[in-house]
Each structure stands twice: as structure tokens, then as C-alpha cells.
């Protein structure tokens, strides 16, 4: 009887698990299968070619450059978003006059689709007709219009900034949820002990917020790593492939050049990357938690 009781929860999640495995698993199986085939541009499989698609991808300098840029893109966007979102969430968590309005303003970019945001920025950043240059010139900050998207380095920087902007609402929401669940009595107790606000932040807020920060990191990394619209709309990965990240390069390969086999290989590589990151990260977090638990028990 005991062992059956142990099996029960597993049995109960089995249907859900099977469905999830099917929904996630089938596309991955299909991708894996396609990536080992020669594929015509009309999606017809022309025969097994082993790892040729992967070999071609790995020998392509544009793939490595895109991979490199993907890492920069993901790390800078996610880190900056976290660093900016935490103070915003702290401020919005305090009770002040007009907090509702402030929250709405912060959340507003979230309500607009990514593609639309990117289109608006593309217009605003236009060299001769763009709003940003017009504003800067009216304010006397610049004399000549700046061509924001003409050169890869500046364009990529601008795209990262837009990426941060659109990631803030989601991250702030996670943090706000976390902050509202923190126990008030810890703060009251620390105040009795004479803790400053910085002490409170350092020793109460931050440690208690850890699970929320972790989930924000994992989810943001996945979203940002796979995010196509901003870069695609603003520069299409150009000029001279200078702003291509893996997902934009993949899109070009698949839907412009019709190389579905190579595109499938890159998709699989990207999936592997994210899976590996998530596993390592979650393992690190869990080990960290276990260690703190033991320390606390020792005390």
C-alpha cells in the first residue's frame, strides 16, 4: 500500500506530463530529424546527410559572430534589466501619492507588441526624419543629425537599450509580486534593532527576494535569447550582418535563403544552449540553497 501511495502523485501528473512531452518533444524530434537531412526550399526532405548541416553551420564565420553577439545581447540586456528593475520595484512598492499612475506608466510598454515598439523606434531613430534627432537638435544638444542605425556598433547599442526598455515591465512585475509577499515583521524587528534602510535591503530584502531574482533571470534569458522582433525590425541584422544574433541569422537562413536544414541545425543548437544554461543555473541555485540551509541548521 505504501508504495502505491508513493506512485499516486506520479500517476496523477502523468497525463499532463505526457501532453507536455508531446508538445515540447515532437517539434524537437522533428527539428532533430530535419537537421540531419538535405531539405529543399519547399520543405521536401531530400535524403539523409548525417551531420553535414552542422558541419556547414560550424564552418560559417557568420554563425560564430552571431553567437558571440547573442551572448553580449543576452547578458547585457538581462543584467541591465535586473539592475534597473529592482530599484523601480522597490520604489513602486512604497506607498506614495500617484503610485497607481506610476505603476501604469512603467507597465505601459508591455501592453504594446514588441514589433510595434520596434517599428516606432525605427521611425524615431531615422536620421533625417526621426523624432529623436529633431528633439536633440531643437534642444541644441547636437548640430548634425546622428544616423543611429547606420553603423553596426551604435545600432547594436541602441537595440540593446530598446531591449532593456521592453524587458523592464515584466521583470518589475515579478519583483513587485515578490516584494508584496515579504513578511512585514522582519522589517519591524530590524527597525527595533536600529537597522538602516540599506541594512534592511542588504540583509532582509535581497536574501528574501533571491527566488524571484532567480526566476527573473531564467525567464528573461530565455525570452531575450530568442527575441527576434527588435533587431529584425530595426536593422534586419545589418549593416553587413553587424547586428545579427542567432535568431535573426536563423530567420534569414530559413525564410530568405531557403536553407531549412541548416536553419534546423541552428535551432537545435540554440535549444541546447538554453537547456544547458537552465540546467546549470538551476543546479547552482539549488546547491546554494542547500548550503544556506545547512549553515542555518548548524547554527
Amino acid at each position, binding site marked *: 500500500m505504501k508504495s502505491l501511495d508513493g506512485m499516486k502523485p506520479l500517476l496523477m501528473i502523468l497525463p499532463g506530463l505526457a501532453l507536455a512531452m508531446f508538445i515540447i518533444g515532437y517539434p524537437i524530434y522533428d527539428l532533430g530529424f530535419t537537421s540531419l537531412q538535405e531539405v*529543399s*526550399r*519547399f*520543405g*521536401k526532405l531530400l535524403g539523409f546527410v548525417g551531420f553535414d548541416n552542422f558541419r556547414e553551420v560550424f564552418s560559417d564565420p557568420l554563425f560564430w559572430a552571431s553567437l558571440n553577439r547573442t551572448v553580449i545581447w543576452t547578458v547585457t540586456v538581462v543584467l541591465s534589466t535586473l539592475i534597473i528593475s529592482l530599484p523601480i520595484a522597490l520604489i513602486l512598492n512604497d506607498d506614495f501619492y500617484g503610485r497607481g499612475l506610476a505603476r501604469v506608466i512603467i507597465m505601459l510598454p508591455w501592453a504594446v507588441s514588441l514589433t510595434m515598439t520596434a517599428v516606432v523606434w525605427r521611425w524615431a531613430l*531615422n*536620421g*533625417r*526624419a526621426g523624432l529623436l534627432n529633431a528633439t536633440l537638435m531643437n534642444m541644441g544638444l547636437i548640430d548634425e543629425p546622428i*544616423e*543611429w*542605425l*547606420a*553603423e*553596426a556598433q551604435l545600432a547594436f547599442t541602441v537595440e540593446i537599450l530598446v531591449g532593456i526598455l521592453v524587458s523592464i515591465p515584466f521583470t518589475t512585475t515579478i519583483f513587485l509580486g515578490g516584494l508584496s509577499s515579504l513578511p512585514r515583521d522582519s522589517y519591524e524587528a530590524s527597525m527595533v534593532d536600529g537597522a538602516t534602510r540599506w541594512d534592511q535591503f542588504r540583509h532582509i530584502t535581497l536574501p528574501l527576494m533571491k527566488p524571484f531574482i532567480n526566476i527573473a533571470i531564467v525567464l528573461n534569458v530565455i525570452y531575450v535569447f530568442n527575441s527576434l522582433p527588435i533587431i529584425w525590425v530595426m*536593422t*534586419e541584422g*545589418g*549593416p*553587413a*550582418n553587424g547586428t545579427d544574433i542567432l535568431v535573426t541569422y536563423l530567420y*534569414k537562413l530559413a*525564410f*530568405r*535563403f*531557403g*536553407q531549412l536544414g541548416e536553419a534546423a541545425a541552428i535551432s537545435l543548437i540554440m535549444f541546447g544552449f538554453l537547456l544547458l544554461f537552465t540546467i546549470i543555473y538551476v543546479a547552482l541555485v539549488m546547491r546554494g540553497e542547500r548550503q544556506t540551509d545547512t549553515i542555518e541548521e548548524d547554527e
Partner: protein
Amino acid sequence: MTPNKKTTLAVSTLALLAWSGAALAETTVDFTVAEYSSKTGPYFEEVAAAFEAENPDIDINIEVVPWDTLLQRLTTDIAGGAAPDISIIGTRWLLDFAEQGIAEPVDDYLTPEFKDTFIDTFMAPSVIDGQIMGLPVAASARAMLINKDLYAEAGATPPTTWDELYEASKKISEETDAFGFGLQGKEIETDAYFYYSLWTHGGDILKEDGTSGLDTPAALEALTLYKKMLDEGLTQPSPTNYSREDLFNLFKQGQVGAVFTFPMLIPQIQAEAPDLNYEVMEFPVATTKATYGVTDTLMMFADSDVKEEAWKFIEFAYKDEWRTKFDRGEGFLPVTKGVAAEDYYTTDKDIAGFAAGLPHAKFAPTIANWEEIADVTVRAVQKVYLDQATPESALTEAAEQINSIRGK
């Protein structure tokens, strides 16, 4: 009870109609139409209705698909075994369709008289390995537009050669607030903007032996000239931030003296900048007269079961009365001799300006992996505009990459 009776009557009438409809129209021809403008769908419905009136046993089923999703749509239809019987496609895709055995050669259907209605130049791109794989359905050629007011203000003469364009652009950039020449540097057809210069300098995209023509002296000269004009401030700065549409906007705003463009810009100018004083001219020449001809193809699917009926409709739709309506409505150049001979195409100075280049029109080669080759070219051109490479090294590198894509 009355409403019920009415309904019953209506339903039975409908059923009867449907039944009789089915009995009369024994065969259905599925026709996928690319949407050029909001006029495209209604136009083809009208042709189909007129055809069905004459041939009550054939039903033409028109489906209008936007250009952006057309290839993807046909791909899925073909993969799913639900391909149409005939479709409008971009001629640049024709080779892929032909190689995969999806396109039906039309030589056997094409009577000599029908074949003779087409202008030969536009027939050429549809010929693959000696077989005609489709019919030209729409055509446009490119030309140069100059802003006559800017030219007058700077005291420059409208150019016919690259030297003259260079001098005129210099004058305009110095004498007026505008830039002499608009240079496209990003997104769709950035490579075409370079081919304009390449062709008129006597070069070509591919050499006789099928290898890339980018490592030739003509290509080097063509790109060096663009770079020189950019460096000397004769073009707008930072071309890599200007797509085709951005460039057209500059021209509409009177900020550039000359651009290279297609006929569809004319209605835009008339609507958005009616005061703009422009003139359509042929591309400036260095050694060779040339323009870029672009065609779309009407293709028949090899898997179709109703080829005879489909062909009957095609012959009907190519009658002069219908072609005139289509070409004028969409702003295209005529692909048939009958329409080309009409007064409109010789007297309207804008259309005549674009049509003038047709005898020496060049086409994008029908070769495999064309999009990828175009992308390599765009990258080379952008590197030069961005000072990341010299014209010579960028072109040599691009030629090597193109040759390796082509397996040469």
C-alpha cells in the same frame, strides 16, 4: 409558420442553385494571384467572371495572396498536396520550382500566334534549359528620377553619363541645401542599386563562364564611384541607414537631386508631393546603356489535373483589353506587343521614360541560391560604405563567396 416556410424555400433554392452550379461548372481551376495593390483582386475576379460567362463549364477560383507571404504559402500548399493549378510567382523563384519538377513547361500549349504576342525581352527570363516554364505577367523597368528644380537652382544640366551625374551632383551639393545623389544602403534591393552602376559600367552579375562578375574592373569602377561620391558628400551621409523607401522619401521631400527608382514611385509622388518638379531619365551611362528589368511569371503546376482548362483561361486573360486594364491599373510596363503599341505607353512621358530602357533591360539571373548571392553582394557594398573594407577587397571576397555558393 411563414418565416419557417420562407427559410425552407430559401434553403431549397440555394441547394438547387448550388446543385445546378456544380452541374454546369464541371471543372474548377484554382488560380493563386499575388496582390500588387488593392485593385488586383477585383481585376482578376472581373476577368474570371467574363471568362466564366463564355465558358460556363469552367469555374475559376481566384485566391489573392499578399507578396510577403506568397512563397511561404505556395511552399505549404505544395508540401500539403494542395497546390493551385496556376499561380503568379516572382520570376526569381521559377528556377527552384522548375528544378523540383513543380512547374509545368508550357511549350506544348503555346501556339506560335500566342507566343508572338509577347515582347521577347520579357519571355527570356522564363526560359530554363531551353523550355518555357511560364509566361511573363507583370514587368517593370528602372530609371533615374531627377528633381528639376534642384537642377535649375544649382545650374546643373540633366545628366546622361556618370561623369555628368557626378558633376551635377557636386554642384547641387555645393549650391543647395540638398544632396546631389541618393544612395541606398540597406534592406531590399540594396544590391540592385549597385547593379545599376555595375551594368552601366559594362559589368554583369555573372561572367560568361557563370562565375561572379564582382571581381572585374567594371565592378570595381562602379563601386569606387559610389564610394567616391559618398566620401565627397555628394550623397546623403550614412547610406547604410537608408532603405529604398527612406530614399524615396528624401526625394519626395526635395532633399536629393536624383534617385534610381521604379515606375510605382510616380503615383506616390503625385499623391504625396504633387508640386515636385521631376523628370524620368534613363540611367547614366559609363560604357553601356542598361536598366534593370523585373518580371513576374504566370506558372502552371505540373500536378494540375485541369491544364487544358487553365490554359484556356490564360489565353483569355492575355487578350489586349484585359492586359491594358491590368498594366495601367497597376502601373506596370506592357509585356505584350499589342499593349505596348498603345498611345499611352509612348506619349505619357513618365511611362515612356521607364519604357525607353526596355530594349537594353538586364534581368536578375535565374540561378539557384539567388537570395543568398544577393545578400553576399549587399554585405560587400555595406562594408565599403562603412569603411570596413576597400572596394577591391570587399568585391574580391564577395566574388569568392558567390563562386563557392555556386559551386564554381
